[in-house]
């Protein structure tokens, strides 16, 4: 039998939100099980290699050594259920051992991954997400190429480019879809976060010093190559992301790092029955929480990117707030801080918004679903000839989203593509249908047959 521990709080996710929650909890004597997929704590934001001194700088990264913390690294929750106030998590530890744990108090901080947009050639080796390129650099000191173009949108592109410059890479160009003038209407938001302004100025200085050009109001709209990317097409885009005719030119490179913001990873929260909603700021599916970070399921809290993209500072605050509410501690200061940080996050999502003109960048052969190799032509045929008008229909008739990633990469943009072709907005049920993943990560059948350790 598995034991139900009412005093043991389970935190899933070892990024800033989960670590902040765990840190606040153990300070008061609570016992915490911290589950993380990574081999070291930190998540994506604090990703570091084995010899890094990052842990000396952040108390949160050292919390795994606390006697009241049971830290499970390289651990995936492959399935989860909720019943009568108890969450049951089925764990796969290091791909080898299965274990089942139960808890009455759960904090979900499963984070986000890069949001992608499809374009011709985006499936070529050497084209990677911006986060992926940075993860390789920070976690492995490994470089995907020697001459790299960094493209997409968002404040994250600058640290990625700078990391590459510092590592000796020739960054051929930084391509940012938004325009710097977009900031003029948001200067008020900056007053809530002057540290970020200082970072931004430092970044600009380094990039200027390395003689790397930032192309604003532009996008990489195609990549070409035979066995891997050899060049990319740079084009100017208008405010709706439609390519300006005749503005395109080629850039030679051996890799492309491209990111269009982030997509929250809701698989676990959805499996546990937590209510979700479409975030009107960026169109992504997020977990609905009340002002105490509690989800629609009593005893299950959510913090960080899964409640809406907001960055690491906000994630830390949300993690602390979830912990404070569980401990019934004072929350006034945290609530005030969260409010300020949300204003800044809102400004960023507005400035670096993805507009649906991206649906004009593809040709009929462009791959949409990478796993199942579903092309734009395949999807359009299903819409025009077979009358598909929603994501479920698209999935059943084209297999888009039915591959091993379970729609994590293509779900949102296939939904947007179908909605646009059908002359409507993306519906909540489109995205919710894709986020339901009863088996969250693959598990060897042999382990399943053996049964879980309890």
């Amino acid at each position, binding site marked *: 039998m598995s034991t139900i521990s009412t005093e043991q709080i389970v935190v899933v996710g070892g990024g800033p939100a989960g670590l902040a929650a765990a840190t606040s909890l153990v300070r008061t004597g609570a016992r915490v099980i911290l589950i993380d*997929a990574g*081999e070291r704590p930190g998540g*994506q934001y604090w990703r570091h*290699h*084995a010899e890094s001194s990052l842990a000396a700088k952040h108390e949160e990264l050292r919390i795994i050594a606390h006697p009241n913390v049971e830290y499970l690294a390289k651990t995936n929750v492959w399935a989860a259920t909720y019943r009568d106030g108890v969450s049951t998590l089925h764990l796969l530890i290091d791909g080898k051992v299965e274990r089942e744990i139960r808890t009455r108090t759960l904090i979900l901080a499963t984070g986000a*991954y*890069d949001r992608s947009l499809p374009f011709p050639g985006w*499936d*070529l*080796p*050497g*084209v*990677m*997400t911006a*986060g*992926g*390129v940075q*993860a*390789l650099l920070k*976690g*492995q000191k*490994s*470089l*995907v190429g020697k001459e790299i173009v960094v493209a997409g949108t968002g404040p994250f592109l600058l640290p990625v480019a700078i990391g590459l410059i510092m590592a000796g890479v020739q960054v051929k160009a930084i391509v940012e879809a938004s325009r710097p003038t977009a900031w003029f209407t948001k200067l008020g938001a900056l007053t809530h976060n002057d540290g970020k302004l200082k970072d931004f100025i430092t970044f600009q200085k380094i990039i200027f010093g390395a003689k790397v050009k930032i192309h604003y109001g532009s996008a990489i709209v195609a990549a070409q190559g035979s*066995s*891997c990317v050899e060049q990319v097409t740079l084009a100017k885009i208008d405010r709706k992301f439609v390519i300006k005719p005749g503005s395109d030119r080629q850039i030679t490179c051996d890799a492309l790092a491209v990111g269009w913001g982030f997509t929250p*990873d809701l698989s676990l929260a959805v499996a546990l029955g937590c209510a979700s909603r479409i975030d009107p700021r960026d169109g992504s599916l997020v977990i609905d929480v009340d002002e105490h970070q509690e989800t629609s399921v009593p005893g299950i809290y959510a913090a960080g990117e899964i409640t809406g993209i907001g960055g690491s500072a906000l994630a830390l605050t949300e993690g602390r707030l979830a912990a404070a509410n569980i401990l019934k501690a004072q929350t006034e200061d945290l609530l005030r801080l969260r409010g300020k940080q949300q204003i800044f996050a809102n400004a960023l999502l507005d400035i670096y918004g993805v507009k649906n003109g991206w649906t004009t960048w593809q040709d009929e052969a462009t791959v949409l679903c*990478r*796993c199942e*190799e579903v092309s734009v032509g395949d999807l359009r045929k299903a819409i025009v000839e077979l009358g598909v008008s929603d994501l479920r229909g698209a999935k059943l008739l084209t297999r888009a989203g039915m*591959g*091993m*990633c379970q729609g*994590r*990469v293509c779900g949102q943009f296939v939904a947007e593509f179908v909605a646009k072709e059908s002359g409507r907005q993306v519906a909540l049920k489109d995205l919710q249908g894709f986020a339901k993943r009863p088996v969250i990560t693959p598990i060897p059948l042999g382990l399943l047959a053996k049964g879980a350790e309890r």
Partner: protein
Amino acid sequence: MTQIRVILNGESITSREGQSVGALLLEHEQRATRTTRQNARPRGMFCGIGICFDCLITINGITNQRACVTNVEEGMTIQTQQGSGAIA
């Protein structure tokens, strides 16, 4: 840093403890980990964090492992794969 011997596509090479299979492949100028099942297109690491399942590769005879989240181990056999897992 502990040196590790692994076999990549039949060739014995040196890696080090903590290195991911994906990073090892990049070090050996090998961008593609596999070809796709239907159109035999080359694919390599894309998300780099275990989300996208694009960098599939055969490790110790087990097909469709993620190169980006699998670390090398002494004596590991790594084979780039064709389609759903016939050895390339």
